């Protein structure tokens, strides 16, 4: 019978208390894993460097709301801006590129953005990277050309199981159950290769298609033909770079100038998003503190359950000594038990944490539109195994030392 077999037998013998200790560790770890994963994923989602948008030209309203809507396909746009104003901004010397768009439609729970075709062919969502339709990279088809054509972001195509040639009618509004533009049948001609950005989570249709959708008021139809009446939701702005790839400092003057107007504003996502993190950061910290406290409490539970088991095991351990086991072997036996319980709890907690995200992701997506992946590995996932080993050693150390110092004869109690 091997050392490990004896350890397993002993674990089995005290299966109830050991099981409870493992479950409590699993719960603490699951919470820690889930909170950390959600924290990191949301952080990555909202702070990804180079979403390609240096600034958003939009209507007056909450800057955060404008960024969330224009860049992350969340929330609603607080209003519209004049096409003519957009054209003026586009001509500013420090503006490298301006891509107009109109939001306000959806399909299958995803936003349908009417956008200038240059977005799909010229816009760099990361430095040097434009959207791809390459099959090798996971894309399909081509950019839209005709008004009845559409392109799906990678995540949308995957979630809705879209294929080239599939058709759809946009829903007016971004909430489920809105009126459907039934007479307008659009056909998917392209699926974007994954970019790992929020751009994967939207459907793109030609800008002019928006103005021609049936059911919109007559003023909207006129906008298609008369530029002075035309309105858009906003525009993605690329600012020229100076040496070292830094944004042209003139952006601050441009922002100041645009923000003086009554209807328009220039929002810089890099300035706005930290505010969001300041708002939600404390929630992260509270949740992580709770998770850490829960894990520490579960380690204490393991410690006390090992001490309690040790009281029951004294005779057995003394007998092992009488059979020739050394003090170190006995100490190793107790610490090994603690290690196995904590590792088991840690691994179950890891799986449970990811399952929690998997279950919760659906509801979060429905409520906020933000996608979370159960398969995402956060920093805590990598630290978990060494942390579980450390936890096991710490929890098992004192009981292990007590086992080391166990008196053989006292615990075998034989006097004659």
């Amino acid at each position: 019978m091997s050392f490990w077999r004896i350890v397993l037998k002993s674990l089995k013998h005290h299966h109830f208390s050991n099981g409870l200790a493992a479950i409590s560790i699993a719960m603490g770890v699951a919470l820690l894993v889930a909170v950390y994963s959600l924290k990191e994923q949301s952080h990555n989602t909202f702070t990804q460097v180079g979403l390609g948008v240096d600034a958003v030209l939009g209507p007056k309203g909450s800057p955060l709301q404008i960024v969330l809507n224009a860049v992350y396909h969340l929330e609603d746009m607080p209003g519209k801006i004049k096409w003519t104003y957009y054209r003026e901004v586009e001509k500013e010397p420090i503006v490298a590129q301006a891509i107009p768009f109109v939001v306000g439609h959806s399909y299958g729970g995803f936003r349908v953005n009417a956008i200038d075709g240059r977005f799909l062919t010229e816009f760099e969502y990361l430095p040097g990277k434009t959207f791809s339709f390459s099959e090798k990279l996971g894309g399909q088809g081509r950019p839209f050309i005709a008004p009845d054509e559409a392109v799906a972001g990678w995540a949308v195509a995957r979630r809705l199981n879209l294929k080239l040639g599939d058709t759809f009618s946009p829903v007016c509004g971004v909430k489920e159950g809105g009126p459907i533009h039934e007479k307008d049948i659009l056909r998917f001609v392209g699926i974007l290769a994954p970019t790992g950005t929020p751009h994967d989570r939207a459907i793109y249709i030609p800008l002019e298609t928006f103005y021609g959708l049936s059911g919109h008021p007559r003023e909207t139809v006129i906008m298609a033909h008369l530029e002075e009446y035309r309105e858009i939701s906003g525009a993605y702005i690329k600012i020229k770079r100076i040496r070292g790839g830094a944004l042209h400092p003139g952006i601050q003057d441009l922002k100041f100038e645009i923000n003086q107007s009554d209807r328009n504003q220039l929002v810089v996502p890099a300035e706005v998003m930290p505010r969001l993190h300041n708002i939600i950061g404390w929630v992260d910290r509270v949740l992580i503190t709770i998770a850490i406290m829960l894990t520490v409490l579960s380690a204490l539970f393991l410690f006390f359950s090992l001490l309690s088991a040790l009281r029951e095991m004294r005779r057995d351990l003394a007998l092992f000594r009488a059979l020739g086991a050394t003090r170190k072997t006995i100490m190793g036996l107790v610490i090994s038990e603690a290690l196995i319980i904590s590792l088991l709890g840690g691994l179950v907690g890891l799986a449970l944490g990811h399952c929690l995200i998997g279950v919760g992701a659906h509801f979060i997506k429905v409520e906020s539109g933000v996608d979370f992946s159960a398969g995402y590995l956060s920093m805590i996932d990598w630290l978990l195994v060494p942390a579980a080993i450390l936890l096991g050693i710490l929890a098992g150390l004192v009981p292990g030392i007590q086992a080391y110092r166990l008196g053989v004869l006292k615990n075998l109690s034989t006097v004659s």
Partner: protein
Amino acid sequence: MAIKKSSTIIDLDSLEIVFGSGRDALKVLDIPYWRVEEGDQVSIFGPSGSGKSTFLNALAGLLSPSSGRLTVCGHSLERMSETQRDHFRAQYIGYIYQNFNLLQGFTALENVLVGMTFSPRKADIKEAESLLDEVGLSHRLGYHPSQMSSGEQQRVAVARALANRPKVLLADEPTASLHPVNKEDVLRLLLDVCEKHGCTLVVVTHEREVIALFKNTVTFLEFNRACQHPGRGEP
């Protein structure tokens, strides 16, 4: 740890065991001289509480002598560290207890296998099964101690004590917890298996019917001449 060649397997001289120190010191054993030859079967008789178990524990290396010389299987126990005595016990000693001391969470077979685990030999299921067969328990391999009679439990203890192929088998009141019907059976089994395995057997007992089965019996108080503790078997 190799056995040193000698026909004398237990050899002690001026052995003293004292519990406590200073004014609280209590001399439990004081044995001037004793020898046991390899293969002998010896019983040590004495009243309950006279220190027989303490003596047996000293022979097993569970207790370190306070003074004197104690050599078992050629190894001087008084010079050994605790870890060395653990290794010594694992290699040379089999021990049977009055209250069996079986592991309750382990089956009969596993109890015997545990007896092999800490010895230098590898645990061998076939050998463990054979030992249990030898003590008449081949039909109880998967039984836990709580599922067996006291006689059967002591047979498992005998098999376990032989599991590490000991040179010396020590038995502490091996029949005291048994029903009278089983006593002689277990004792005869013990004598037979020790003879078969070439083990030296030392049994301590306070039962006269036990010593009747031994050719060689020592009255414990004959050599424990200075047992000072009141109630610990003064003549």
